C-alpha cells in the first residue's frame, strides 16, 4: 500500500475522537488531552473573606481570550459535576507574559459550587476549562465612545473590569476613566492593592469606592454627582442583576443611549414561581406547550400535548423516559421531594412540574 492510499484523514479524525487514545494521552499529562482543555491550578489566594482568586496555567492548545471575557470551569463537588462561568480577572497581556490566567470567585450564600471551591480544589491538580467567550469587551470599532469611559462594578462584578482596565493601562494609559466601585463594607473589598495602585497607572483616572452598608445603594443623584458627564461616556457595568437594572435605568434617564451601555450579568437569585394555578410546560424541540394540571406527570403532559415520547415501565424503574430539562422546578411524584436543579436529565414518568417548565429534548 502506498502512503497515499491509506485514508489518513478519517483515521486521524477517528483517533482524536477515541476515548482510549485520550486516556493514554491524559495519563502522560492531563494537558495532552485532545478532547478537553485542562488547566493546572498553581495557587489559590484569598482576596478577602469569602472571595478567592485561582491562578491557573492553561495548556498550550487553549486559545487565549479578549479582556472582559469569561470561561467555563468544570468542578466535581461530592461526586456531582457542575459547570460554572467565571470572568477572567487578568489581562491578555498578563497571560501572554506568564502563561497564567486568574479567576476571582466570590462565595454565593448557599451556593453549590462557589463556597466549596477552595476546599475541593487541590493546588497542583487539573481543572477543565472551556474556550473563552463573551461580548463584554472594548468596542474598538465604535470610535465615538472610546475616548471616555465610565465603569461601574458591584461586588464580584469587579472581575471583568479589572481585566479591561489592565489591558487599557498598557495600551492607552491616557484614557479618561471614571471607576465607581460598590462594596458592602471594607471587609468585602476585592483587589484592594490593585485599586490603590490604579490612579498612579493612568493619567486621567478617577476612582470612587462606595460602601453601601454606610452610604446606601446607588441612586440617580449620587451617580450623577460622581459622574456628571455620564451620557458622553461609554459605560461598562457589572454586578448583581438588581444593581445593573438600576444603573441602566438611571443612565438612560440621563440621556445615555442603549448602544453606549455594556453589561455583564452574573446571573441572579431566581424568583421561584409558587404554583398558583396551572403553569405551562413548553417542549422546545417540537415547539409545543401545554398547561399542567392536577398532578399529571411530565410524561402524561407530553402525551396530552400530542407528543409521543419514549417510555417503558411508566413507574420509574427503567429510565427509558429520560428527557432533558431546560428550566423550571420539578417534584418527584412518589416522594414529593424537589428534583435537584443541577439534574438536567429527568425521568418524565415520575416527575411533576412545579411552576413553568421547559423541556429541551421533546
Amino acid at each position, binding site marked *: 500500500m502506498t502512503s497515499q492510499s491509506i485514508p489518513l484523514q478519517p483515521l486521524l479524525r477517528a483517533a482524536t475522537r477515541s476515548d482510549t487514545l485520550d*486516556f493514554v494521552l491524559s495519563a502522560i499529562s492531563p494537558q495532552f488531552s485532545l478532547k478537553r482543555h485542562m488547566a493546572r491550578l498553581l495557587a489559590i489566594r484569598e482576596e478577602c473573606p469569602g472571595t478567592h482568586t485561582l491562578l491557573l496555567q492553561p495548556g498550550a492548545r487553549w486559545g487565549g481570550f479578549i479582556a472582559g471575557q469569561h470561561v467555563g470551569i468544570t468542578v466535581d463537588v461530592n*461526586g*456531582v459535576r457542575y459547570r460554572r462561568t467565571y470572568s477572567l480577572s487578568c489581562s491578555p497581556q498578563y497571560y501572554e507574559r506568564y502563561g497564567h490566567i486568574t479567576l476571582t470567585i466570590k462565595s454565593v450564600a448557599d451556593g453549590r459550587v462557589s463556597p466549596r471551591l477552595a476546599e475541593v480544589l487541590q493546588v497542583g491538580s487539573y481543572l477543565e476549562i472551556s474556550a473563552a467567550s463573551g461580548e463584554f469587551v472594548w468596542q474598538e470599532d465604535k470610535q465615538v465612545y472610546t475616548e471616555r469611559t465610565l465603569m461601574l462594578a458591584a461586588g464580584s462584578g469587579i472581575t471583568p473590569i479589572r481585566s479591561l482596565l489592565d489591558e487599557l493601562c498598557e495600551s492607552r494609559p491616557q484614557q479618561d476613566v471614571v471607576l465607581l466601585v460598590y462594596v458592602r463594607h471594607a471587609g468585602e473589598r476585592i483587589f484592594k492593592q490593585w485599586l490603590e495602585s490604579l490612579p498612579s497607572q493612568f493619567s486621567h483616572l478617577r476612582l470612587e469606592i462606595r460602601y453601601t452598608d454606610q452610604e446606601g445603594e446607588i441612586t440617580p443623584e449620587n451617580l450623577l454627582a460622581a459622574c456628571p458627564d455620564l451620557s458622553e461616556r461609554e459605560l461598562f457595568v457589572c454586578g448583581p442583576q438588581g444593581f445593573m437594572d438600576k444603573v441602566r435605568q438611571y443612565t438612560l434617564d440621563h440621556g445615555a443611549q442603549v448602544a453606549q451601555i455594556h453589561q455583564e450579568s452574573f446571573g441572579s437569585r431566581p424568583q421561584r414561581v409558587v404554583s398558583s394555578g396551572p403553569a405551562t410546560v413548553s417542549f422546545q424541540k417540537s415547539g409545543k406547550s401545554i398547561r399542567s394540571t392536577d398532578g399529571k406527570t411530565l410524561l402524561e403532559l407530553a402525551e396530552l400535548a400530542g407528543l409521543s415520547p419514549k417510555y*417503558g415501565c411508566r413507574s420509574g*424503574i427503567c429510565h427509558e423516559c*429520560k428527557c432533558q430539562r431546560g428550566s423550571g422546578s420539578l417534584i418527584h411524584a412518589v416522594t414529593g421531594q424537589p428534583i435537584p436543579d443541577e439534574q438536567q*436529565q429527568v425521568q418524565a414518568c415520575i416527575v411533576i412540574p412545579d411552576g413553568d417548565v421547559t423541556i429541551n429534548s421533546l
Partner: protein
Amino acid sequence: MDMRTRPLNLMTVTELEAFGKELDGIRERALADLGDRDARYIREMVRLQKQAEIAGRLLIHLGRSPLTWGAGVVSLSVSKILENMEIGHNVMHGQYDWMNDPSLQSQSYEWDTACDAESWRRTHNYEHHTYTNILGKDRDYGYAILRLSEEEEWKPRHLLQFGNYVLLSVFFQWGVALHELEFDKLRDGSVTLKEKIPFLKRFARKGLKQFGKDYLLFPALAGPGALKVAAGNGLANLGRNLWASTIIFCGHFTEDAQVFTEAECEGESRAQWYYRQMLGSSNFTGGQWLHTLSGHLSYQIEHHLFPDVPAHRYPEMSVEVQAVCEKYNIPYNTGSFGHQYLTVLKRVLRSSLPPEDHPLRKRIPFLRRN
C-alpha cells in the same frame, strides 16, 4: 423444591405495605448518601478497564511468546467483562446519571459488545426489569430458546436444549444483540420482518462496528501478525461471552428462582413488584473479585430491587434486605457461585425432559427412571 409458580401474595395488605415502605427506605437512604465515594468507585473501574484493555491489546500485538499472548487475551477479556458488566450495564441503568458526567449518562452510553445500547435499554431495562420472570412477558426468561419451568409446554426440541444452552453461551453477545428481533414471534407470525427493519439496521450498524474493530482494524494494524491478533480478540470475546452468560443464568435460573403468570401480576403495587423481584432473583457469594467481575450481579436480588442505585452499594444494602426478608419470612435465595451454577445446569437439563405425565416418559426406559 419444584419449579412451579407459587402463590404470590402470602402477606396481608398491611404487611405488604409495610414491607414496601421498608424497601423504599433502604433505597432512599442509599440515594441520599450518593457522593464522592460512588464517583471515585466508578471512575476507578473505568481507569482499571482502560488499563486492562490497553495492556491486553499491546500484549496480543507485541507479545513474542504464547505466554504473553495468553496474558494479553486474559487482560483484554477482563477489560471487556469489566466494561460490559461493572461499567456499561450499570451506567445504562442510570446508576450514575446523578453525577452529570457526560461519559457516564445512561441514555447516551454505548458499550463494547455487539448489542446496540438503545436496543438493550429497551429490552433489558424496561422489559426484563419490569416484567421479571413473568412467563410470556419477560423475554429474558430462557431467551425464547430454553424451557426452564414446568409451567411451559414441553416440545420434543427441548430434549436437545443443553446443546442450545452451550451455543447461546458461546455466542452470547450475538444472542443478546439479536434479542429484540423476537425470533419466536417472527416464527409464529405475531410480528413481521418489516416491523423489525429499523432494529435490523441498528443491529447491523453496531454489529459491523464491533466485528470491524476486533477482526479487521486491529488485525490490520498488526500487519503480518493479523491472524494472531484476530484469534486473540476472538478468544477474549469468547471468554467474556461465557462469563456473562454464566453470571446472568445464575441470576434468575437457579433452582429456587420462581416464575410468575401474567394474571398474578396484573395491577401489581410497588410493594408487590418488590416482592416478585425477590422471589425471582438469586444471589451468589464469593470474593470481592467475583462481585466486581460480575458487575455486582452476584447481588441480583438487590439489583432487581434497586436497579438504578450504584451496584457497588449492593453488598451493604443486602444486609438490610436480608433483615427485611427474615422479618417478613421471604426466602432469600443465595449460595456459593459453584452451587448456584450447578442448580442452573440441573434446571436446564431437567426442564429438557418431558413432564411426569407425558406419554413419552412411560415409553422411554431411561426417562422412566427419572
